[in-house]
């Protein structure tokens, strides 16, 4: 039940062997929806738990930002996964993923309006009532904004965190992507976020395409994102930072180099 600390990696079946052999690893994340709760958890996760590695269930389909009330069955599943893995916390996104009976297939941004803040806070509070552990909320990377925002990003996020008491899961690559695509200063946003409420960080790679920076999770982490990670940790270092990779998995040596680069940027011990 240790809270996340140090350098972690997103556990995925494709890299389970690699993750199992990281000697210094103390922290992974697993996609909550991929864990069955009817039987025992996947063997690889059980082995990590037995080694004392903290496993945080990371939900991607709760749709907390949907206008409709969050589906109690989805919250119950997330709660069951947290219990099954003896997780100290769970995480989800400030986003919606479905509406009007259609699945978007991805995390979509909310309008930064008071109406949307009311809707997502109501859902977070509903989820908190049924979760056995605290929830950390992750602001997403979005390629577009709604046309009628009433709040800027920092005010929007602070309003949600203040009203719900939730922790923050800050994704440095998302902060970078949004700032790049909007032409804003990522450090100005960091200056206004409650860094002391960050449960852990996410960091991932991305790529340029069609005039936008895409947070792909399938490319290496660029130097700009690593610099932003180092800047953030120089201001106030959160307890942990987790590398997300979701496809085009590179050779083990390359992944180890990325984990080491994350450790160096944060000043954490290497886990490789």
């Amino acid at each position: 039940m240790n809270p996340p600390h140090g350098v972690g990696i997103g556990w995925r079946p494709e890299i389970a062997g690699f993750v199992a052999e990281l000697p210094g690893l103390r922290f992974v994340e697993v996609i909550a929806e991929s864990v069955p709760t009817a039987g025992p958890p996947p063997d690889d996760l059980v082995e990590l738990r037995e080694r004392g590695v903290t496993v945080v269930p990371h939900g991607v389909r709760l749709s907390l930002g949907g206008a409709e009330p969050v589906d109690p069955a989805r919250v119950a599943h997330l709660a069951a996964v947290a219990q099954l893995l003896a997780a100290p916390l769970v995480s989800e996104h400030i986003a919606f993923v479905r509406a009007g009976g259609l699945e978007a297939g991805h995390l979509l941004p909310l309008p930064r309006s008071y109406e949307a803040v009311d809707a997502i806070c109501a859902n977070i509070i509903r989820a908190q009532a049924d979760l056995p552990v605290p929830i950390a909320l992750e602001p997403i990377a979005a390629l577009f904004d709604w046309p009628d925002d009433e709040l800027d990003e920092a005010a929007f996020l602070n309003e949600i965190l203040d009203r719900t008491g939730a922790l923050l899961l800050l994704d440095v690559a998302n902060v970078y992507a949004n700032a790049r695509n909007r032409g804003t200063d990522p450090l100005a946003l960091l200056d206004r976020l409650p860094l002391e409420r960050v449960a852990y960080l996410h960091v991932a790679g991305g790529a340029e395409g069609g005039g936008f920076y895409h947070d792909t999770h399938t490319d290496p982490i660029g130097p700009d994102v690593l610099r932003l990670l180092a800047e953030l940790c120089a201001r106030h270092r959160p307890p942990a930072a987790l590398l997300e990779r979701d496809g085009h998995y590179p050779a083990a040596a390359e992944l180890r180099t990325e984990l080491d680069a994350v450790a160096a940027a944060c000043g954490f011990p290497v886990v490789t």
Partner: protein
Amino acid sequence: MTPAGAGPDGPTGTPAATPVEKATATLASRQAELVATLVAGGPPPPGFAPGPLAAARAALLRKRAGEVARHWPLLAAGLGPTWSTMFIEWAADRPTGGGLRDGWDLARALHARTALPALGAEELAVREAEFRYDGHQAPRRRRSPALGRVGGAIAVQVAGRVRLLRPARP
């Protein structure tokens, strides 16, 4: 459900909102309208910058192509470098039914116009022998023995075990 005008009726059921409607539209209807734009070929909601919205739509389709390729690796491999373009063109105004069903629907559509590559035909034959799929509901595992025949490929399933008996005609 959502108020009229932005429900799940898809592309044709979502008229463009007038300024008055926009002012009174609820978060639910506006979210529904946005999702329909992104995944079902609906018209862009008023006020959104078209460039970023188009980029998001394209990114969603690329992500979906990747998911389908994980469920249908032979179909994707058979189409080679044309896979992404082929899938994205086909999927642009079709909401997803999940990677398994999307790939299934595409494979059947390609087969119907004799454009399914041999590898895709073999993969489809195996799936047809393994599951019953009516194109609407989630595929269900067959309980009795079955043959799958697609473009010369024949797969047989007995007691849940599937074997490709004959490869597809190249």
